[in-house]
């Protein structure tokens, strides 16, 4: 029973990983790539680690998987945020069909 539930979680996690990487290839713009890949890959890897937690139970490896989930949920958005900010400051434009860019307007008004 436990093995089946763990296998279901791992398969769902791998599927979301695959969707995230397809988004990394298909999206037209760097910010959209960041959105699709960060969300899908973070939840997919958390699904795999949750499957590991169910499979091993509350033992040494299971607790390490739980710590890894917490750590991943704390750090993956931070690194995505840092990369988005650095990209915008280094001067990469948004996609042609984007609607608005309030950040660039504010920076132009300041300088």
């Amino acid at each position, binding site marked *: 029973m436990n093995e089946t539930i*763990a296998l279901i979680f*791992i*398969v769902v*996690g*791998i599927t979301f*990983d*695959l969707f*995230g*990487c*397809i988004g*990394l*290839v*298909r999206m037209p713009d*760097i910010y959209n*790539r*960041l959105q699709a*890949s*960060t969300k899908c*890959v*973070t939840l*997919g*890897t958390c699904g*795999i*680690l949750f*499957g*590991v937690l169910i*499979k*091993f139970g509350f033992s*040494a*490896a299971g607790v*390490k*998987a739980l*710590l*890894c989930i917490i*750590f*991943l949920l704390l*750090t*993956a958005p*931070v*690194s*995505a945020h*840092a*990369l988005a*900010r*650095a*990209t915008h*400051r*280094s001067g*990469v434009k948004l996609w042609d069909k984007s609607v608005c860019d309030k950040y660039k307007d504010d920076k132009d008004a300041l300088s």
Partner: protein
Amino acid sequence: MKFFRWLLGSVFLAGTIIFIFSYLKVGPQAKLMLYLLVSFLLSLFRVLKGPTPADRAIATDIFGILVIGFCAILAVYTGRDWYMDVAIAWGLQSFIGTLALAKFIEGKNFDE
């Protein structure tokens, strides 16, 4: 042209998945790892192709997160606990490396 590229990509993905699913004679655990290898290949494609340096940095970050999941699957199907230690250490190093890459792309010094 766009339709042709889309068709080529979907045929490649579906062909790889069908090949792994039906023709390859390995156990079901190794099949799971091969599915994960497809997403490794896609992120490596973005590393090779990316027009700006930031694209490559993003693909490297995603690659680091995928390695954590790969280590977790290895820990399940070999039954060895220390693969989880490898996963935690790899996650820490990947996070710090991504922050350093972000500082580098922004064009600042590291102590700022």
